[in-house]
Protein backbone atom coordinates (compact mmCIF):
# COMPACT_ATOMS: atom_id res chain seq x y z
CA UNK A 1 0.00 0.00 0.00
CA UNK A 2 1.13 3.52 -0.78
CA UNK A 3 2.74 5.15 2.26
CA UNK A 4 0.43 8.15 1.90
CA UNK A 5 -2.52 5.83 2.55
CA UNK A 6 -0.67 4.16 5.42
CA UNK A 7 -0.22 7.56 7.06
CA UNK A 8 -3.78 8.77 6.46
CA UNK A 9 -5.35 5.52 7.57
CA UNK A 10 -3.70 5.99 10.97
CA UNK A 11 -4.35 9.73 11.19
CA UNK A 12 -6.41 11.51 8.55
CA UNK A 13 -5.49 14.90 9.96
CA UNK A 14 -1.81 14.81 8.99
CA UNK A 15 -1.43 17.71 6.57
CA UNK A 16 -0.09 17.43 3.01
CA UNK A 17 2.81 19.59 4.17
CA UNK A 18 3.78 17.09 6.87
CA UNK A 19 3.25 14.08 4.63
CA UNK A 20 5.44 15.83 2.07
CA UNK A 21 8.11 16.28 4.73
CA UNK A 22 7.95 12.66 5.78
CA UNK A 23 8.13 11.25 2.27
CA UNK A 24 10.43 13.88 0.77
CA UNK A 25 7.86 15.04 -1.74
CA UNK A 26 6.28 18.39 -2.50
CA UNK A 27 3.00 19.13 -0.68
CA UNK A 28 1.41 19.87 -4.07
CA UNK A 29 2.33 16.40 -5.22
CA UNK A 30 0.78 14.85 -2.08
CA UNK A 31 -2.39 16.93 -2.57
CA UNK A 32 -2.61 15.74 -6.15
CA UNK A 33 -2.20 12.09 -5.18
CA UNK A 34 -4.74 12.37 -2.38
CA UNK A 35 -7.19 14.11 -4.70
CA UNK A 36 -6.84 11.24 -7.14
CA UNK A 37 -7.45 8.70 -4.38
CA UNK A 38 -10.56 10.66 -3.43
CA UNK A 39 -11.73 10.87 -7.03
CA UNK A 40 -11.15 7.16 -7.63
CA UNK A 41 -12.97 6.28 -4.44
CA UNK A 42 -9.90 4.74 -2.81
CA UNK A 43 -10.31 7.29 -0.05
CA UNK A 44 -14.05 7.50 0.58
CA UNK A 45 -14.25 9.88 3.51
CA UNK A 46 -12.49 11.08 6.65
CA UNK A 47 -14.06 10.59 10.04
CA UNK A 48 -13.34 10.56 13.75
CA UNK A 49 -13.32 7.31 15.69
CA UNK A 50 -15.58 8.00 18.65
CA UNK A 51 -15.75 5.99 21.82
CA UNK A 52 -19.49 6.19 22.46
CA UNK A 53 -19.11 4.41 25.76
CA UNK A 54 -17.75 7.65 27.16
CA UNK A 55 -20.55 9.89 25.90
CA UNK A 56 -23.17 10.33 28.57
CA UNK A 57 -25.94 12.01 26.63
CA UNK A 58 -29.50 10.96 25.96
CA UNK A 59 -28.92 10.39 22.25
CA UNK A 60 -26.97 7.20 22.82
CA UNK A 61 -27.56 4.52 20.24
CA UNK A 62 -27.99 0.80 20.24
CA UNK A 63 -26.45 -1.37 17.57
CA UNK A 64 -27.37 -4.80 16.38
CA UNK A 65 -25.70 -7.34 14.15
CA UNK A 66 -28.35 -8.85 11.91
CA UNK A 67 -27.98 -12.00 9.87
CA UNK A 68 -30.23 -12.03 6.84
CA UNK A 69 -31.13 -15.02 4.70
CA UNK A 70 -32.23 -14.05 1.22
CA UNK A 71 -33.26 -15.70 -2.03
CA UNK A 72 -31.01 -14.49 -4.83
CA UNK A 73 -32.77 -13.08 -7.86
CA UNK A 74 -32.31 -14.44 -11.34
CA UNK A 75 -29.56 -12.56 -13.26
CA UNK A 76 -29.16 -10.05 -10.45
CA UNK A 77 -27.86 -12.37 -7.70
CA UNK A 78 -27.67 -10.72 -4.32
CA UNK A 79 -26.73 -7.22 -5.43
CA UNK A 80 -30.18 -5.84 -6.08
CA UNK A 81 -31.69 -7.01 -2.83
CA UNK A 82 -28.57 -5.91 -0.95
CA UNK A 83 -29.01 -2.44 -2.41
CA UNK A 84 -32.60 -2.29 -1.21
CA UNK A 85 -31.45 -3.31 2.24
CA UNK A 86 -28.41 -1.06 2.63
CA UNK A 87 -30.27 1.99 1.36
CA UNK A 88 -32.13 2.24 4.65
CA UNK A 89 -30.37 4.85 6.80
CA UNK A 90 -30.67 2.51 9.78
CA UNK A 91 -28.19 0.15 8.10
CA UNK A 92 -24.69 1.32 9.04
CA UNK A 93 -22.82 -1.56 7.38
CA UNK A 94 -23.81 -4.33 4.99
CA UNK A 95 -21.69 -7.30 3.92
CA UNK A 96 -22.35 -10.31 1.69
CA UNK A 97 -20.77 -13.30 3.35
CA UNK A 98 -20.32 -17.03 2.96
CA UNK A 99 -21.84 -19.51 5.40
CA UNK A 100 -25.27 -20.22 6.75
CA UNK A 101 -26.72 -16.81 5.94
CA UNK A 102 -26.11 -14.25 3.22
CA UNK A 103 -26.08 -10.66 4.40
CA UNK A 104 -24.59 -9.38 7.62
CA UNK A 105 -25.89 -5.97 8.65
CA UNK A 106 -24.95 -3.57 11.37
CA UNK A 107 -28.09 -1.65 12.23
CA UNK A 108 -28.26 1.40 14.44
CA UNK A 109 -31.21 2.86 16.29
CA UNK A 110 -31.89 5.17 19.19
CA UNK A 111 -33.10 2.32 21.36
CA UNK A 112 -33.95 -1.38 21.36
CA UNK A 113 -37.49 -0.71 20.17
CA UNK A 114 -36.54 1.29 17.13
CA UNK A 115 -34.18 -1.47 15.96
CA UNK A 116 -36.81 -4.13 16.63
CA UNK A 117 -39.33 -2.03 14.74
CA UNK A 118 -37.01 -1.68 11.75
CA UNK A 119 -36.48 -5.43 11.66
CA UNK A 120 -40.15 -6.27 12.05
CA UNK A 121 -41.65 -3.63 9.78
CA UNK A 122 -39.01 -2.95 7.14
CA UNK A 123 -36.53 -5.78 6.86
CA UNK A 124 -38.45 -9.00 7.50
CA UNK A 125 -41.42 -8.26 5.24
CA UNK A 126 -39.18 -7.51 2.25
CA UNK A 127 -39.61 -9.69 -0.76
CA UNK A 128 -36.79 -12.31 -1.05
CA UNK A 129 -35.89 -12.01 2.65
CA UNK A 130 -36.34 -15.51 4.04
CA UNK A 131 -35.31 -14.95 7.62
CA UNK A 132 -33.41 -12.72 10.04
CA UNK A 133 -31.54 -13.24 13.31
CA UNK A 134 -30.88 -10.16 15.43
CA UNK A 135 -27.98 -9.88 17.91
CA UNK A 136 -27.90 -6.75 20.02
CA UNK A 137 -24.42 -5.51 20.81
CA UNK A 138 -23.64 -5.22 24.48
CA UNK A 139 -20.16 -3.77 24.54
CA UNK A 140 -17.62 -2.63 22.01
CA UNK A 141 -14.01 -3.50 22.71
CA UNK A 142 -12.31 -2.78 19.41
CA UNK A 143 -13.46 -1.21 16.17
CA UNK A 144 -11.61 -0.87 12.88
CA UNK A 145 -8.30 -1.65 14.50
CA UNK A 146 -8.80 0.81 17.33
CA UNK A 147 -9.02 -0.52 20.87
CA UNK A 148 -11.70 1.47 22.65
CA UNK A 149 -10.29 2.49 25.97
CA UNK A 150 -8.98 5.57 27.64
CA UNK A 151 -5.73 6.93 26.33
CA UNK A 152 -2.84 4.90 27.62
CA UNK A 153 -0.42 6.48 30.01
CA UNK A 154 3.16 6.91 28.92
CA UNK A 155 5.15 4.04 30.33
CA UNK A 156 8.59 5.10 29.13
CA UNK A 157 10.95 6.80 31.52
CA UNK A 158 11.85 10.30 30.35
CA UNK A 159 15.57 9.70 30.13
CA UNK A 160 17.40 6.62 28.99
CA UNK A 161 20.36 5.90 26.76
Amino acid at each position, binding site marked *: MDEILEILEKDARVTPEDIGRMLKKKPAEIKKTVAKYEKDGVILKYKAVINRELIKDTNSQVRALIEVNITPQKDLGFDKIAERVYSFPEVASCYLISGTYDLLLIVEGKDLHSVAKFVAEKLSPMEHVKGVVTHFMLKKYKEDGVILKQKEENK*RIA*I*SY
Partner: protein
Amino acid sequence: MKDIIAKKVKDMQPSGIRLFFDLVLGMDDVISLGVGEPDFVTPWQIREAGITSLEEGYTSYTSNKGLYKLRMAISRYLKSNYGVEYSPDDEILITVGVSEAVDLALRALLNPGDKVIVPQPSYVSYGPVTELAGGTAVYIDTSRSGFKLTPADLDRHIDSRVKALILNYPSNPTGVTYTRKELEALKKIVLKHNILCITDEVYGDLTFDFEHVPFPSLSGTKEHTLYLNGFSKNYAMTGWRVGFACGPKEIIAAMTKIHQYTIMCVSITGQMAAAEALHIGRKPVDEMKREYRRRRELICDGLSELGFTFFKPQGAFYIYPSIKSTGMHCLDFARGLLEQQKVAVIPGTAFGERFTDRLRMCYALSYEDLKEALRRMKLYLENKR
Protein backbone atom coordinates in the same frame (compact mmCIF):
# COMPACT_ATOMS: atom_id res chain seq x y z
CA MET B 1 33.01 3.51 56.52
CA LYS B 2 35.72 5.38 54.75
CA ASP B 3 36.41 4.77 51.07
CA ILE B 4 33.97 1.91 50.88
CA ILE B 5 33.43 2.41 47.16
CA ALA B 6 36.15 1.26 44.79
CA LYS B 7 38.05 4.06 43.13
CA LYS B 8 37.38 2.87 39.61
CA VAL B 9 33.65 2.97 40.31
CA LYS B 10 33.81 6.40 41.94
CA ASP B 11 35.49 7.72 38.84
CA MET B 12 32.87 6.40 36.47
CA GLN B 13 29.93 8.77 35.88
CA PRO B 14 30.32 12.24 34.40
CA SER B 15 28.62 14.08 37.24
CA GLY B 16 27.17 17.10 35.42
CA ILE B 17 24.79 14.98 33.42
CA ARG B 18 23.50 13.03 36.40
CA LEU B 19 22.25 16.27 37.93
CA PHE B 20 20.49 17.19 34.73
CA PHE B 21 18.75 13.81 34.60
CA ASP B 22 17.53 14.20 38.16
CA LEU B 23 15.99 17.49 37.10
CA VAL B 24 14.11 15.85 34.19
CA LEU B 25 12.80 12.97 36.27
CA GLY B 26 11.36 15.40 38.81
CA MET B 27 9.21 17.26 36.25
CA ASP B 28 5.75 16.55 34.85
CA ASP B 29 4.36 17.08 31.33
CA VAL B 30 7.74 17.01 29.70
CA ILE B 31 8.00 16.10 26.02
CA SER B 32 11.03 13.90 26.15
CA LEU B 33 13.41 13.50 23.25
CA GLY B 34 15.75 12.03 25.82
CA VAL B 35 14.62 8.44 25.62
CA GLY B 36 16.65 5.60 24.18
CA GLU B 37 13.89 3.25 23.14
CA PRO B 38 10.97 2.85 20.76
CA ASP B 39 7.60 4.42 21.60
CA PHE B 40 5.85 1.28 20.36
CA VAL B 41 4.73 -1.46 22.68
CA THR B 42 6.07 -4.94 21.87
CA PRO B 43 3.81 -6.42 19.12
CA TRP B 44 0.94 -8.36 20.65
CA GLN B 45 1.85 -11.78 19.22
CA ILE B 46 5.17 -11.54 21.03
CA ARG B 47 3.63 -10.41 24.31
CA GLU B 48 1.06 -13.18 23.98
CA ALA B 49 3.83 -15.76 23.58
CA GLY B 50 5.38 -14.50 26.81
CA ILE B 51 2.04 -14.73 28.62
CA THR B 52 1.36 -18.22 27.25
CA SER B 53 4.78 -19.44 28.36
CA LEU B 54 3.93 -18.32 31.90
CA GLU B 55 0.53 -20.01 31.76
CA GLU B 56 2.16 -23.20 30.62
CA GLY B 57 4.54 -23.10 33.54
CA TYR B 58 7.80 -22.13 31.86
CA THR B 59 9.26 -20.54 34.96
CA SER B 60 12.58 -22.34 35.35
CA TYR B 61 16.21 -21.64 34.47
CA THR B 62 17.33 -22.34 30.93
CA SER B 63 20.76 -23.56 29.92
CA ASN B 64 23.44 -20.93 30.52
CA LYS B 65 23.80 -20.26 26.82
CA GLY B 66 20.06 -19.76 26.45
CA LEU B 67 17.16 -21.77 25.05
CA TYR B 68 18.31 -23.94 22.20
CA LYS B 69 15.24 -23.05 20.13
CA LEU B 70 16.09 -19.36 20.44
CA ARG B 71 19.74 -19.91 19.50
CA MET B 72 18.55 -21.98 16.55
CA ALA B 73 16.12 -19.23 15.49
CA ILE B 74 18.91 -16.62 15.71
CA SER B 75 21.20 -18.83 13.65
CA ARG B 76 18.52 -19.13 10.96
CA TYR B 77 17.69 -15.42 11.06
CA LEU B 78 21.33 -14.46 10.48
CA LYS B 79 21.75 -16.99 7.70
CA SER B 80 18.57 -16.11 5.81
CA ASN B 81 18.78 -12.33 6.23
CA TYR B 82 22.50 -11.77 5.92
CA GLY B 83 24.13 -15.01 4.84
CA VAL B 84 26.13 -15.19 8.09
CA GLU B 85 26.50 -18.63 9.63
CA TYR B 86 26.79 -19.18 13.38
CA SER B 87 26.26 -22.56 15.01
CA PRO B 88 23.56 -22.62 17.69
CA ASP B 89 25.67 -25.17 19.58
CA ASP B 90 28.72 -23.14 20.50
CA GLU B 91 28.85 -19.84 18.64
CA ILE B 92 25.79 -18.06 20.09
CA LEU B 93 25.14 -16.85 23.65
CA ILE B 94 21.87 -15.28 24.83
CA THR B 95 22.55 -12.26 27.05
CA VAL B 96 20.64 -9.69 29.10
CA GLY B 97 20.44 -7.23 26.24
CA VAL B 98 23.47 -6.13 24.28
CA SER B 99 24.64 -4.33 27.42
CA GLU B 100 25.55 -7.56 29.17
CA ALA B 101 27.20 -8.87 26.02
CA VAL B 102 29.47 -5.80 25.89
CA ASP B 103 30.42 -6.31 29.54
CA LEU B 104 31.08 -10.04 29.10
CA ALA B 105 33.13 -9.50 25.99
CA LEU B 106 35.40 -6.91 27.53
CA ARG B 107 35.87 -8.89 30.73
CA ALA B 108 36.58 -12.03 28.76
CA LEU B 109 39.14 -10.33 26.54
CA LEU B 110 41.06 -7.73 28.48
CA ASN B 111 44.18 -8.05 30.57
CA PRO B 112 45.28 -5.02 32.59
CA GLY B 113 46.66 -2.44 30.22
CA ASP B 114 44.99 -3.78 27.09
CA LYS B 115 43.42 -1.12 24.93
CA VAL B 116 40.09 -0.93 23.16
CA ILE B 117 39.38 1.52 20.38
CA VAL B 118 36.12 3.40 20.78
CA PRO B 119 35.11 5.81 18.00
CA GLN B 120 33.32 8.82 19.47
CA PRO B 121 30.61 9.98 19.89
CA SER B 122 29.81 6.58 21.29
CA TYR B 123 27.18 4.78 23.28
CA VAL B 124 27.67 5.55 26.95
CA SER B 125 28.79 2.15 28.24
CA TYR B 126 31.73 1.24 26.02
CA GLY B 127 34.35 3.40 27.73
CA PRO B 128 33.33 2.84 31.39
CA VAL B 129 32.89 -0.91 30.91
CA THR B 130 36.32 -1.13 29.25
CA GLU B 131 37.84 0.63 32.25
CA LEU B 132 35.96 -1.61 34.70
CA ALA B 133 37.37 -4.63 32.90
CA GLY B 134 40.87 -3.30 33.50
CA GLY B 135 41.44 -1.99 30.01
CA THR B 136 41.97 1.45 28.56
CA ALA B 137 39.61 3.05 26.08
CA VAL B 138 41.28 4.81 23.17
CA TYR B 139 38.79 7.35 21.89
CA ILE B 140 38.86 8.47 18.28
CA ASP B 141 37.02 11.67 17.41
CA THR B 142 34.98 11.08 14.25
CA SER B 143 33.34 14.49 14.01
CA ARG B 144 35.49 15.54 11.07
CA SER B 145 34.48 12.52 9.02
CA GLY B 146 30.71 12.60 9.36
CA PHE B 147 30.81 10.65 12.63
CA LYS B 148 32.28 7.68 10.83
CA LEU B 149 35.55 6.04 11.72
CA THR B 150 37.99 6.26 8.84
CA PRO B 151 40.47 3.47 8.03
CA ALA B 152 43.35 5.95 8.32
CA ASP B 153 42.30 7.08 11.80
CA LEU B 154 41.84 3.50 12.90
CA ASP B 155 45.22 2.47 11.51
CA ARG B 156 46.96 5.38 13.22
CA HIS B 157 45.59 4.51 16.66
CA ILE B 158 46.43 0.82 16.72
CA ASP B 159 49.51 -0.25 18.65
CA SER B 160 50.57 -3.59 20.10
CA ARG B 161 48.32 -3.15 23.19
CA VAL B 162 45.13 -2.64 21.18
CA LYS B 163 43.06 -5.79 21.37
CA ALA B 164 39.71 -4.74 20.00
CA LEU B 165 37.67 -2.12 18.20
CA ILE B 166 34.06 -1.41 19.16
CA LEU B 167 31.86 -0.49 16.23
CA ASN B 168 28.22 0.50 16.61
CA TYR B 169 26.13 1.08 13.50
CA PRO B 170 23.61 2.50 12.97
CA SER B 171 25.00 4.52 15.82
CA ASN B 172 23.54 5.63 19.07
CA PRO B 173 23.74 8.72 19.38
CA THR B 174 24.24 9.83 15.76
CA GLY B 175 22.10 7.49 13.64
CA VAL B 176 24.99 7.34 11.19
CA THR B 177 25.82 4.00 9.61
CA TYR B 178 28.40 2.47 7.28
CA THR B 179 28.10 1.32 3.68
CA ARG B 180 29.57 -1.97 2.51
CA LYS B 181 32.48 -0.14 0.89
CA GLU B 182 33.33 1.72 4.09
CA LEU B 183 33.16 -1.50 6.08
CA GLU B 184 35.41 -3.29 3.61
CA ALA B 185 38.01 -0.56 4.12
CA LEU B 186 37.80 -0.87 7.91
CA LYS B 187 37.99 -4.64 7.62
CA LYS B 188 41.38 -4.40 5.94
CA ILE B 189 42.79 -2.55 8.94
CA VAL B 190 41.21 -4.97 11.44
CA LEU B 191 42.73 -7.94 9.61
CA LYS B 192 46.07 -6.22 9.06
CA HIS B 193 46.54 -5.70 12.80
CA ASN B 194 44.87 -8.95 13.81
CA ILE B 195 42.48 -7.33 16.31
CA LEU B 196 38.88 -8.21 17.18
CA CYS B 197 35.96 -6.13 15.96
CA ILE B 198 33.20 -6.06 18.58
CA THR B 199 30.27 -4.90 16.51
CA ASP B 200 27.12 -3.69 18.24
CA GLU B 201 24.43 -3.87 15.56
CA VAL B 202 21.36 -3.61 17.74
CA TYR B 203 19.93 -0.97 15.37
CA GLY B 204 20.86 -2.93 12.23
CA ASP B 205 17.27 -3.78 11.33
CA LEU B 206 16.41 -0.09 11.52
CA THR B 207 18.56 1.04 8.58
CA PHE B 208 16.61 3.35 6.27
CA ASP B 209 18.38 4.12 3.05
CA PHE B 210 20.15 0.91 2.09
CA GLU B 211 20.54 -2.67 3.26
CA HIS B 212 22.37 -3.08 6.53
CA VAL B 213 25.66 -4.98 6.19
CA PRO B 214 26.70 -6.94 9.29
CA PHE B 215 30.44 -6.87 9.86
CA PRO B 216 30.75 -10.69 10.00
CA SER B 217 29.09 -10.94 6.57
CA LEU B 218 32.24 -9.50 4.99
CA SER B 219 34.47 -12.28 3.75
CA GLY B 220 37.30 -13.31 6.04
CA THR B 221 36.02 -11.43 9.09
CA LYS B 222 34.26 -14.14 11.05
CA GLU B 223 37.25 -15.10 13.19
CA HIS B 224 37.87 -11.43 13.91
CA THR B 225 34.34 -10.46 14.82
CA LEU B 226 32.14 -10.60 17.87
CA TYR B 227 28.68 -9.76 16.61
CA LEU B 228 26.20 -8.32 19.13
CA ASN B 229 22.51 -7.85 18.51
CA GLY B 230 19.20 -8.09 20.34
CA PHE B 231 15.46 -7.64 20.29
CA SER B 232 15.12 -4.32 22.11
CA LYS B 233 15.09 -1.86 19.25
CA ASN B 234 13.86 -3.80 16.22
CA TYR B 235 10.97 -5.55 18.01
CA ALA B 236 10.41 -2.81 20.62
CA MET B 237 11.32 -5.19 23.45
CA THR B 238 13.63 -3.05 25.60
CA GLY B 239 12.07 -4.10 28.91
CA TRP B 240 12.37 -7.81 28.15
CA ARG B 241 16.16 -7.57 28.19
CA VAL B 242 17.13 -10.10 25.55
CA GLY B 243 20.24 -9.80 23.42
CA PHE B 244 22.81 -12.15 21.97
CA ALA B 245 26.46 -12.49 21.07
CA CYS B 246 27.79 -14.49 18.14
CA GLY B 247 31.44 -15.19 17.59
CA PRO B 248 34.32 -17.62 17.55
CA LYS B 249 33.77 -20.63 19.85
CA GLU B 250 36.66 -19.72 22.09
CA ILE B 251 35.32 -16.24 22.84
CA ILE B 252 31.72 -17.41 23.31
CA ALA B 253 32.95 -20.11 25.71
CA ALA B 254 34.93 -17.54 27.73
CA MET B 255 31.95 -15.17 27.87
CA THR B 256 29.66 -18.06 28.88
CA LYS B 257 31.97 -18.80 31.84
CA ILE B 258 31.45 -15.30 33.26
CA HIS B 259 27.77 -15.30 32.35
CA GLN B 260 27.11 -18.58 34.20
CA TYR B 261 28.50 -17.20 37.45
CA THR B 262 27.05 -13.71 37.27
CA ILE B 263 23.72 -14.00 35.45
CA MET B 264 23.14 -17.77 35.14
CA CYS B 265 20.70 -17.30 32.28
CA VAL B 266 18.34 -14.75 30.73
CA SER B 267 14.74 -14.84 31.99
CA ILE B 268 12.94 -17.69 30.26
CA THR B 269 9.87 -15.53 29.59
CA GLY B 270 11.98 -13.08 27.63
CA GLN B 271 13.64 -15.87 25.71
CA MET B 272 10.33 -17.49 24.79
CA ALA B 273 8.98 -14.13 23.61
CA ALA B 274 12.15 -13.46 21.61
CA ALA B 275 11.84 -16.82 19.87
CA GLU B 276 8.30 -15.86 18.86
CA ALA B 277 9.58 -12.52 17.52
CA LEU B 278 11.89 -14.32 15.11
CA HIS B 279 9.12 -16.73 14.23
CA ILE B 280 6.88 -13.82 13.18
CA GLY B 281 9.67 -12.35 11.10
CA ARG B 282 10.27 -8.85 9.82
CA LYS B 283 6.78 -7.53 9.15
CA PRO B 284 6.29 -5.62 12.41
CA VAL B 285 9.90 -4.45 12.28
CA ASP B 286 9.48 -3.07 8.77
CA GLU B 287 6.27 -1.29 9.75
CA MET B 288 7.99 0.42 12.67
CA LYS B 289 11.00 1.21 10.50
CA ARG B 290 8.83 3.01 7.93
CA GLU B 291 7.35 5.02 10.79
CA TYR B 292 10.80 6.00 12.13
CA ARG B 293 11.91 6.95 8.64
CA ARG B 294 8.96 9.33 8.22
CA ARG B 295 9.68 10.88 11.61
CA ARG B 296 13.33 11.25 10.65
CA GLU B 297 12.30 13.44 7.75
CA LEU B 298 10.04 15.50 10.02
CA ILE B 299 12.75 16.16 12.58
CA CYS B 300 15.48 16.79 9.98
CA ASP B 301 13.28 19.39 8.27
CA GLY B 302 12.29 20.92 11.57
CA LEU B 303 15.83 21.19 12.87
CA SER B 304 17.10 22.63 9.59
CA GLU B 305 14.43 25.32 9.79
CA LEU B 306 15.67 26.15 13.28
CA GLY B 307 19.18 26.59 11.90
CA PHE B 308 20.78 23.51 13.43
CA THR B 309 23.32 21.54 11.45
CA PHE B 310 23.66 17.75 11.60
CA PHE B 311 24.68 14.67 9.70
CA LYS B 312 21.48 13.12 8.44
CA PRO B 313 20.83 9.87 10.32
CA GLN B 314 20.48 6.76 8.18
CA GLY B 315 19.19 4.44 10.86
CA ALA B 316 18.13 3.99 14.50
CA PHE B 317 15.97 6.83 15.88
CA TYR B 318 18.46 9.44 17.00
CA ILE B 319 19.85 12.66 15.62
CA TYR B 320 22.87 14.48 17.01
CA PRO B 321 22.62 18.11 15.92
CA SER B 322 25.12 20.86 16.56
CA ILE B 323 24.04 23.93 18.55
CA LYS B 324 27.22 25.82 17.76
CA SER B 325 25.20 28.67 16.20
CA THR B 326 23.72 29.44 19.64
CA GLY B 327 27.14 29.72 21.25
CA MET B 328 25.86 27.73 24.21
CA HIS B 329 27.27 24.74 26.05
CA CYS B 330 25.03 21.71 25.55
CA LEU B 331 24.34 21.35 29.27
CA ASP B 332 23.16 24.97 29.57
CA PHE B 333 21.10 24.63 26.42
CA ALA B 334 19.46 21.43 27.63
CA ARG B 335 18.77 22.78 31.09
CA GLY B 336 17.25 25.99 29.69
CA LEU B 337 15.13 24.10 27.17
CA LEU B 338 13.82 21.86 29.91
CA GLU B 339 13.10 24.61 32.41
CA GLN B 340 11.59 27.10 29.98
CA GLN B 341 9.81 24.85 27.47
CA LYS B 342 9.63 21.44 29.14
CA VAL B 343 11.42 19.63 26.35
CA ALA B 344 14.05 17.10 27.38
CA VAL B 345 17.08 16.29 25.24
CA ILE B 346 20.38 14.65 26.17
CA PRO B 347 23.47 16.86 26.35
CA GLY B 348 25.98 15.75 23.72
CA THR B 349 28.75 15.34 26.29
CA ALA B 350 27.08 12.15 27.55
CA PHE B 351 28.54 10.50 24.46
CA GLY B 352 31.99 12.04 24.63
CA GLU B 353 33.28 14.94 26.69
CA ARG B 354 34.47 16.92 23.70
CA PHE B 355 31.01 17.20 22.14
CA THR B 356 29.97 20.30 24.07
CA ASP B 357 28.05 21.71 21.09
CA ARG B 358 25.90 18.66 20.43
CA LEU B 359 22.58 17.26 21.65
CA ARG B 360 21.12 13.82 21.24
CA MET B 361 17.47 13.82 20.31
CA CYS B 362 15.39 10.69 19.98
CA TYR B 363 12.59 10.98 17.45
CA ALA B 364 10.70 7.84 18.48
CA LEU B 365 7.70 10.05 19.27
CA SER B 366 4.26 10.64 17.77
CA TYR B 367 4.02 13.26 15.00
CA GLU B 368 2.09 15.56 17.34
CA ASP B 369 4.70 15.39 20.08
CA LEU B 370 7.52 15.78 17.60
CA LYS B 371 5.94 18.86 16.07
CA GLU B 372 5.14 20.30 19.47
CA ALA B 373 8.73 19.73 20.61
CA LEU B 374 10.02 21.54 17.50
CA ARG B 375 7.58 24.40 18.10
CA ARG B 376 8.79 24.76 21.67
CA MET B 377 12.43 24.68 20.59
CA LYS B 378 11.67 27.49 18.19
CA LEU B 379 10.16 29.54 21.03
CA TYR B 380 13.17 28.77 23.19
CA LEU B 381 15.55 30.00 20.52
CA GLU B 382 13.49 33.14 19.87
CA ASN B 383 13.51 34.02 23.55
CA LYS B 384 17.28 33.58 23.62
CA ARG B 385 17.83 36.19 20.93
